[in-house]
């Protein structure tokens, strides 16, 4: 058999016709994963919708315990990180090695800021007795017998989202160290593009979580 490496660039695996087909296949695979993620979070949003139609008063009362200011700050932090990851992809496409590395580092830093703010929000709630589960919940500031149900939904939705942020930080560190080795450029930046899509999805979910949890009136 002919040696494919003589006709293929090093990054193209032998079962793809060319670099372009490999890129398109990888991206489509990521979009299929995003479909799965939409439906995964969709189940949680479905629970939210059911309980909100059952107990509208519970949601308006319990949401007063969430800090709109820090929720809004975290929204801006995630939007900023989406912008820097888009800039990182652009840098890779333009062969700007330094721009790629710096934008990835800013994105990782913003993701960490998001988690630190979330940590302070969680620890404040845990401190005053707002814990998930009826047995653990001891806070008495909300006059509703099912106050723990709202915070069960809050902790699961923001917790699973936070888990996605942690995974995103891991992925971007991996991309960053590969970028430092000079693996990415205009010819090949598929992992940067795919990780970017994942990170935008994390931003997208928070765009819905923020008004639905923090801004209930």
């Amino acid at each position, binding site marked *: 058999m002919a040696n494919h490496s003589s006709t293929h660039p090093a990054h193209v695996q032998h079962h793809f016709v060319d670099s372009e087909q490999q890129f398109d296949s990888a991206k489509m695979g990521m979009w299929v994963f995003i479909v799965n993620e939409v439906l995964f979070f*969709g189940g949680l949003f479905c629970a939210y919708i059911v309980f909100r139609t059952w107990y509208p008063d519970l949601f308006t009362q319990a949401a007063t315990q969430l800090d709109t200011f820090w929720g809004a700050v975290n929204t801006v932090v995630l939007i900023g990180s989406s912008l820097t990851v888009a800039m990182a992809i652009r840098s890779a496409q333009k062969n700007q090695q330094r721009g790629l590395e710096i934008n990835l580092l800013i994105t990782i830093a913003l993701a960490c800021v998001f988690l630190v703010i979330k940590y302070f929000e969680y620890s404040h709630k845990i401190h005053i007795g707002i814990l998930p589960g009826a047995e653990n919940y001891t806070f008495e500031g909300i006059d509703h017998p099912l106050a723990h149900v709202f915070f069960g939904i809050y902790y699961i939705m923001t917790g699973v989202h936070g888990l996605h942020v942690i995974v995103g930080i891991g992925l971007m560190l991996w991309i960053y160290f590969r970028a430092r080795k000079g693996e990415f450029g205009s010819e090949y930046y598929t992992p940067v593009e795919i990780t970017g899509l994942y990170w935008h999805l994390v931003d*997208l979910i928070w765009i819905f979580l923020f008004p639905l949890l923090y801004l209930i009136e």
Partner: protein
Amino acid sequence: MSDNHKHGHHISTPAQLWAVGGALIVLTIVTVLFARVIHLPYPFNIITALAIAFTKAGLVAAFFMNLYWDVKFNLMLLIASLAFFILMVAITLLDTLYRIEVVPSF
């Protein structure tokens, strides 16, 4: 669109990306203002909040995730996922909205 089109991949200009990021932050401020300063009566408060959230999501999907320039198949995947989400919620609500007792065990 003036950037070079090697492989036909779209490369956004920094101005385009900053404009999208800026619009997202402005819409975040608008949604907070609607909820905390301009109090709309129910159900218009929820409709406004969701309309702004979907606008923001549309901006992210179109210009950060590049669906605007991408092959239509990927857009179809996203729309299909939303269609199945709506189906899941609708079928669930057909049960939960029409129960005589909400949850007997509560």
